[in-house]
């Protein structure tokens, strides 16, 4: 029997420090066994348990896209035991990844629609996966317009800066990067994400919003999208809960009768309305 608790062995092949506070890094892992890679079929929005023997596991959204074969990427903030240990790792170290877990952004549902991606802070990771997936040449034609609003507190806290610059240069994506407060060198937009969403004002016509960020950002952004005419079915977000097993057994991450690890983390607001508000 396949043991879902045993992590897949991977090796750290690249580490990028994303922000000037140095507490958010992107780790690139390569599979050690090629058959593991073949079996690891995922979609944007799914997560995996990063597993460091001797320390434990931590559930983290997958930041790379399945259109980027050969590796997995995770952007991790240093917080607890596992993530702190991870931050101290060096390229070449072996560790484990357990997954993919949970559901994904609803790719089938998004097909043929205009997509508004709203992200705040370092919660942008699985959104990046989605954007990379959609922008891939084999996929781009399956989706309508893409509008992205991405905000961070300061320019130094924006992640994936190179990628943002590359997207800026493209004409098949409308990218709006904003910071709460800029510095001398910042030439871009200043302002909170909800305000920028109001300014950008994407049409709700045949459109879906995918939103991920700190709770306070989400709280103030949702009314903007309601005003723009988005229905609750067309606003989709991802939940976070403390997790251990990742497969709906250990009992801690349920919201009502749904387990965030197994039935989530992605839910539409319409689905969340049916669940209890305990997250």
């Amino acid at each position: 029997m396949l043991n879902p608790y045993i992590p897949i062995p991977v090796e750290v092949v690249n580490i990028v420090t994303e922000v000037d506070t140095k507490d958010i890094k992107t780790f690139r892992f390569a599979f050690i066994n090629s058959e593991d890679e073949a079996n690891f079929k995922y979609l944007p929005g799914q997560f995996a348990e990063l597993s460091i023997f001797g320390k434990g596991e931590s559930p983290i959204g997958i930041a790379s896209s399945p259109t980027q074969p050969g590796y997995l990427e995770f952007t991790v903030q240093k917080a607890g035991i596992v993530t702190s240990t991870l931050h101290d790792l060096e390229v070449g170290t072996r560790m484990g990844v357990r997954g993919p877990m949970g559901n994904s952004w609803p790719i089938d549902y998004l097909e043929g629609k205009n997509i508004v991606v709203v992200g705040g802070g370092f919660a942008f990771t699985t959104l990046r996966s989605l954007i990379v997936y959609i922008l891939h040449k084999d996929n781009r034609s399956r989706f309508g317009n893409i509008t992205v609003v991405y905000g961070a507190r300061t320019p130094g806290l924006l992640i994936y800066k190179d990628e943002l610059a590359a997207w800026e240069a493209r004409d098949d994506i409308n990218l709006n990067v904003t910071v709460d407060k800029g510095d001398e060198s910042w030439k871009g937009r200043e302002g909170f994400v909800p305000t920028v969403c109001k300014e950008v004002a994407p049409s709700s016509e045949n459109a879906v919003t995918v939103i991920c960020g700190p709770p306070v950002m989400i709280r103030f952004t949702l009314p903007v999208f309601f005003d723009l005419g988005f229905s609750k079915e067309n606003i989709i977000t991802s939940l976070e809960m403390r997790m251990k097993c990742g497969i709906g057994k250990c009992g801690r991450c349920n919201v009502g009768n749904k387990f965030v690890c197994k039935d989530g983390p992605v839910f539409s607001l319409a689905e969340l309305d049916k669940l209890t508000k305990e997250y």
Partner: protein
Amino acid sequence: MEKRLLKKDKLAGIIKNISREMLVYAPVKEEDNVLFMALKEGREPLLDFSNSRNAPKTFFFPRTEIMMKYTRTGKGMELSTGEVEVREAVLFGVRPCDARSFALLDMLFEQDKYKDPYYIARREKTTVISMACVHPPYSTCFCTSVDGSPTSGEGADILLMDIGDNYLVEFITSRGEKLLKYFGDLPKAGEAEETLKKEIAERAEKEIKSHIPAKDIKPILDNNFEHPFWETIHRKCLACGTCTYLCPTCHCFDISDEAKGSDGIRIRNWDSCMYPLFTLETSGHNPRTTQKERWRQRVMHKFKYYVDNFGAISCVGCGRCVMYCPVNLDIRKIVEDIAKL
């Protein structure tokens, strides 16, 4: 299904014979407690007892269990073994409520998509011999309120019932029938015993004193996640987790790592929704902030979520949480109060 008759004085000998060839877990008296324990050489299992203090789920889902071992290599810590090693065993003397808990736990641990190899390996190698409650042992027993019965064989491989001079032995599953050889050449049970069994079962059910509207509260729970009632139950709770540790159906666990030098293990330990740390996130945010939310979760999980997800109430009516809660938080009363909302 084979049904045989066994002289009552022969049972202890049979269990002893089985224990010569495989591991037998049986209720024994330890100081003041009756506990399920591995039967050691020379120890007799209790045949006449009410019920054990600990729930026998612990043999499929132990309080601490090694999931895998790992060791340091030149490139970091790497897995050394994830094999699940389990021996052939017999779990003797399980009360019908506790046996039913196995059927309920199976639903979770053997779900279609994700199977729990540790639980399943133990379950597959263990034969469960139940002992019907001819007289339900406690006034707090309420198995009939949650779809159980004091003489049910659900979750068991073999069911024993005291019918006077004999035990009626029912070999319910093929795994149970494999133990036939230990029982020797027993006479088959006939019509008379069948009738007797029916009578005993009916009488036993009538002897159950606690009745709670467990099945009626689902629609109420569906609509009352927010209700002032939840403010009233938790205050005296000590968050000690005794209810969940003794519960035959509670299954929440924690996974943690322990390492010494270059070797380590990943283990899982029981956890409890009653503990504040259960849902505490690294950020400091806790979705279940106070004991109120934790109690609501416990009630909801047993009487609503499990019903939503698996079609069964996750409670077998053994009454352990009622008897051993140090501050008398009585689930029977809570269910009754909810029914009145």
